[in-house]
């Protein structure tokens, strides 16, 4: 649909802009600057700073260009004496009580007030009274410090809190000259997105407590890079000085982050200089770890792997990859394992997932244009925070609708027009029921057989029909599902559901497979899967594999991570290469995995930080990781972007480690830099043909999704009984105390102990009240934590938040059903 446009004249130049554009943006579109403080293109029009005064023909008084729409034939004058005087007046008022501490101000050099004063100010002031003194250092939170004297009360920050975050946590207090930003009862302003107010503050009032007085902005070496925490891959600018990371600011990319980043992305970077970093390679000899050179470590790895392959065959070697690494690193690793070792024992995850979609792979911007977004098993607020903001924007500001299907309550529920909760562990039944209801609604076949929806999942058939009805009546549906929160056949059922919904002649649909880890999608694209080659080529597609990878390419199905641990425990898997992954803590089953890893004859850990897994390794190789590495990552929207380095690493980049290992296996690996690897994978990975340094330089590039290979109607299995126990639902936390956010992190104030959240029905039966200590146990593992009675999940389950590595919450998952016992202490 073409948007209606209007044509106006600004300073004699004509501009044609979409209807509804304000005059500031219209001017910007033709290269005319209208100065602003309070207006921000992503927020609402405030009109309070009065900086953008312009003359508009036929209007008696000066108008604020930010609050008025451009209209057909409008004549705007931006440089008349009246305008110049008006703006000089506004700047004089703005500066009346603004301290002149620019020489020590963090904003100096990138300050709109400095710039506007320079460009539009009178150059002098007539203020002859003492400037008003105010608080110079008020800690709004452990990471944000307010210099009240510098505040010009533009309300950008409070508007952000109200309109973007929708928390109204930061508000304006008092009146007139004494107005003051703050929070209710002076509680800390510590939301998930609070740091954005530092970026949007047009003066040096809101400052980054960590960066405060640490460096001048013009002394920073800025690197346009990507956040490496969750799978949104928000764009950030990495400011370093003398090879030390000083700060991270947002770098707006409308297709990804819409200009915002979360606090984890902004402040959670201490890992780049952590004491826990692996700096030198090591080889274990006689049980002791000895420092080795990289060549020695690589040689040891190659020779050991070769001899194990020779003795036990390639199936005795496995690889556990990382969803946090770049596409290049993962590509090279699968190449090493497949072409060098000759095995498909390659995986990176504990959940079941397959590459490809039967429908379009939607980008984040599609959430805004879709009239209905469906969240399945997703908790964007904790898992993919920037999606949380995008969904709120779509629902509240753009009038789109949201419906939610999940086994636990999330903060997104309050924005949903319908929210259904299935019993923990019954996702297959619930999704099967939804697919069936959608198929019925569209009069289509092909849905799985589901009986007893209500009994098996807790959702009534009518409710599910209502849910499905919303999906079939929408013109554009965006389905966001988290494969990591689904079990069994669920991902296949979701894809089945999507292909049925796609048959709706009245609407279109697409999906975002939202696994939360940084590059989980890229890892699948790069073939870190036991049953797919890069680009989603199934092992059954023998000819294509041979065409791309040659005759010797292995086509026997490899082991999944879980199978690898099983084989390791039984002694069948002799060697395991673990790349930036810590299965002992991050995979369900903890202790069993630890025992299994101990049995592996040769364990190689290639990691950035020391972990429980690296402690068991026979060879340890340092990985440089985000901040130091260069490469591409693919976010959940399918967008491939360029992660630049911001700091110079002292050890070798990972691609060089891999080049050494590949050479050891007599595979040519003459890479000059990370982008020569990109060039190779562009040739070898279907879908990545267009990915080049140049093509992804700015906003990145979406790669086309592979077609999904699931042809048959998936089977739906009813959940097994948990006996007298409870099903465990582990809820992800954005600020979890782990190897990345260590205990001394700037975000430590967000850390909390895990809680056992019980349904009120169960709590009453057990006589448990909020605040009681309870023991959550499974096998030989138990966790003594505080209980909270809140209907976050249906009866029969307990939600425990994954609050940190030390709690080993995932180790409580010991069987297929994830059954735990809960008792009052």
């Amino acid at each position: 649909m073409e948007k209606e446009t209007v044509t106006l004249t600004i300073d004699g130049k004509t501009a044609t802009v979409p209807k509804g554009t304000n005059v500031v943006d219209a001017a910007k579109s033709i290269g005319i600057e209208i100065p602003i403080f309070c207006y921000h293109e992503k927020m609402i029009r405030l009109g309070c700073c009065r900086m953008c005064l312009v003359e508009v023909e036929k209007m008696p008084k000066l108008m604020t260009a930010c609050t008025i729409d451009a209209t057909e034939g409008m004549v705007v004058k931006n440089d008349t004496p009246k305008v110049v005087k008006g703006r000089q007046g506004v700047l004089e008022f703005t500066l009346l009580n603004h301290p002149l501490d620019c020489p020590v101000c963090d904003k100096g050099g990138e300050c709109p007030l400095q710039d506007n004063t320079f460009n539009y100010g009178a150059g002098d002031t007539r203020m002859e009274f003492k400037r008003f003194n105010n608080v110079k250092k008020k800690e709004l939170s452990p990471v944000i410090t307010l210099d009240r004297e510098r505040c010009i009360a533009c309300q950008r920050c409070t508007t952000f809190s109200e309109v973007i975050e929708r928390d109204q946590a930061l508000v304006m207090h008092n009146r007139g000259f004494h107005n003051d930003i703050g929070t209710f009862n002076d509680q800390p302003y510590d939301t998930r997105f609070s740091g954005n107010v530092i970026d949007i503050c047009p003066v040096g009032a809101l400052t980054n407590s960590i960066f405060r007085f640490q460096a001048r902005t013009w002394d920073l070496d800025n690197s346009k890079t990507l956040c490496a925490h969750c799978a949104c891959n928000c764009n950030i600018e990495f400011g370093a000085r003398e090879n030390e990371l000083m700060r991270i600011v947002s770098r707006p990319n409308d297709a990804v982050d819409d200009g915002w980043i979360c606090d984890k992305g902004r402040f959670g970077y201490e890992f780049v200089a952590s004491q826990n970093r692996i700096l030198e390679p090591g080889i274990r000899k006689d049980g002791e770890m000895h420092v080795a050179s990289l060549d020695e470590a690589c040689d040891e790895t190659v020779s050991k792997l070769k001899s194990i392959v020779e003795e036990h065959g390639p199936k005795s070697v496995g690889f556990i990859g990382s969803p946090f690494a770049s596409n290049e690193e993962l590509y090279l690793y699968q190449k090493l394992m497949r072409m060098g070792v000759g095995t498909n024992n390659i995986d990176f995850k504990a959940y079941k997932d397959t590459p490809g979609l039967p429908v379009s792979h939607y980008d984040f911007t599609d959430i805004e244009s879709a009239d209905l977004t469906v969240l399945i098993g997703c908790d964007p607020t904790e898992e993919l925070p920037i999606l949380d903001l995008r969904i709120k924007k779509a629902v509240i500001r753009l009038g789109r609708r949201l419906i939610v299907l999940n086994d636990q309550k999330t903060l997104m529920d309050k924005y949903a027009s319908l929210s259904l909760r299935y019993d923990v562990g019954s996702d297959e039944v619930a999704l099967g029921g939804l697919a069936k209801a959608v198929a019925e609604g569209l009069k289509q076949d092909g849905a799985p057989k589901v009986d007893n929806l209500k009994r098996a999942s807790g959702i009534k058939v009518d409710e599910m029909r209502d849910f499905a009805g919303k999906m079939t009546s929408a013109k554009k549906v965006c389905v966001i599902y988290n494969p990591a929160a689904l079990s069994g056949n669920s991902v296949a059922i979701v894809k089945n559901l999507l292909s049925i919904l796609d048959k709706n002649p009245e609407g279109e649909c697409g999906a975002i497979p939202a696994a939360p880890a940084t590059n989980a999608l890229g890892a699948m694209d790069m073939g870190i899967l036991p049953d797919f080659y890069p680009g989603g080529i199934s092992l059954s597609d023998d000819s294509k594999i041979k065409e791309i990878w040659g005759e010797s390419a292995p086509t026997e199905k490899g082991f999944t991570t879980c199978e690898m641990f099983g084989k390791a425990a039984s002694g069948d898997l002799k060697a395991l290469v673990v790349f930036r992954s810590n299965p002992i803590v991050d995979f369900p089953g903890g202790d069993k995995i630890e025992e299994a890893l101990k049995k592996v004859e040769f364990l190689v850990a290639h990691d950035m930080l020391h972990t429980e897994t690296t402690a068991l390794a026979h060879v340890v190789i340092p990985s440089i990781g985000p901040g130091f590495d260069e490469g591409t990552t693919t976010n959940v929207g399918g967008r491939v972007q360029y992660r630049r380095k911001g700091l110079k690493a002292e050890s070798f980049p990972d691609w060089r480690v891999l080049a050494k290992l590949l050479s050891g296996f007599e595979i040519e690996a003459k890479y000059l830099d990370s982008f020569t690897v990109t060039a190779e994978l562009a040739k070898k990975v279907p879908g990545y043909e267009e990915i080049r340094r140049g093509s992804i330089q700015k906003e990145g590039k979406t790669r086309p999704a592979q077609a999904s290979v699931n042809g048959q109607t998936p089977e739906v299995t009813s959940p097994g009984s948990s006996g007298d126990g409870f099903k465990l639902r582990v809820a992800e936390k954005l600020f979890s105390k782990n190897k990345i956010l260590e205990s001394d992190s700037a975000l430590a104030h967000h850390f909390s102990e895990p809680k056992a959240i019980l349904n009120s029905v169960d709590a009453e039966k057990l006589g448990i009240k909020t605040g009681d200590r309870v023991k959550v146990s499974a096998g030989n593992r138990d966790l003594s934590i505080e209980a909270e009675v809140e209907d976050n999940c249906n009866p029969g389950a307990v939600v425990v938040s994954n609050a940190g590595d030390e709690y080993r919450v995932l180790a409580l998952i010991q069987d297929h059903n994830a059954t735990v016992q809960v008792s009052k202490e």
Partner: protein
Amino acid sequence: MTKILFKDIDVEGLTTLKVYQKLGGYSSLKKAFSMKPEEVLNEVKNSGLRGRGGAGFPTGLKWSFLAKDSFPRYFACNADESEPGTCKDRILLEKNPHLLIEGLIVSSYACLIETGYIYFRGEFQDVADLMDEAIAEAYKKGYLGKNIMGSGFNFDLYTHLGAGAYICGEESALLNSLTGMRGEPRSKPPFPAVQGLYDKPTVINNVETVCAVPWIVNEGSEAYKSIGTEKSTGTKLVSVSGHVNKPANVEIDLGTPVSKIIEMCGGMRDGNKLKAFIPGGSSVPMLGIEHIDVPYDYESLKEAGSMLGSGALIVMDETTNIVEATMRLAYFYMHESCGKCTPCREGTRWLYQMLGEVLNRRGSPETVKTLQDACDNMAMKTFCPLADAAVAPVVSSIELFPEDYESFFAEASATAG
């Protein structure tokens, strides 16, 4: 002088429905319900009634701007009477609450509105309590609620107390405050008639305006038009304060000369000579003695260089220190600026500082020049008219009484010894 609003104002027990009704109260409902809503609207439009809150916008015209086909609509009655010198609404609210209720029912009927709010300034607790009692009586009698007097028209009325901010008398700030938000003016357009309370079409009228509606409906628009001048029809309450012998609220026919109004209030204090007067509340420019006979109506006062405003006549005699009086007004605006717009937030404080400088005999012609320029930089450059109001007394006092300022200059006092 015709008495419309003050007709029975001093009758004992007027606050009760019984007495009010005995004196003919609520009679306009029957008449109104026998007409179509748009006929009532046209009657008010034709009467020439203009908003009594300050801007003087024709009431019927305002009603006709309501966005078509957008429901529900709301009525917000502005009882945030805070303009310095103004106390006319208070009298009506204290002494004749049922008149406002009757006016609101009829006005809402005309505008197809079923929900109304009376927004009181925070200090009006006692008045609001009284209104709550009156509303309860009206509900009991069936004048409020569902199907009023069998007409099929429903109307619910609520009272709301502000938190004591002058700015909440500005209509869009009032709406913000009424919904629990910070009392700051909104951007216009959209105007409240299109997107007001809860983003729905909303009529906002002053207490006095609404109170005139029942009489117009009962007696007809022609009768109303016959009072006052051609463009300023009807009667107006004037709160006379300052240096008169008997400060009072008086009801006048629009067009009555100011000198006559002063006379109605017992003439000048101690027989002193008039120095200046502010005709329409502190937000309008002051006028000098040469305008003593100006007819008190919208057009004549505008022609004289001021405005009728809220109808508060502040009279100052020859003993008045104009600089000090101006500074007191500047203090008020500094205190009441909501702080949203930079020129107002910073400028009102600067004006106060500079006036203090003059008054403390540290000023110079330069100070006055800066004062005037700062006023120019504030005027018409903010969201709402508060900044314009703040500069009005400063600009007009400098213009009318430059010698008063000069007498305080540093060198002037030095020569005076």
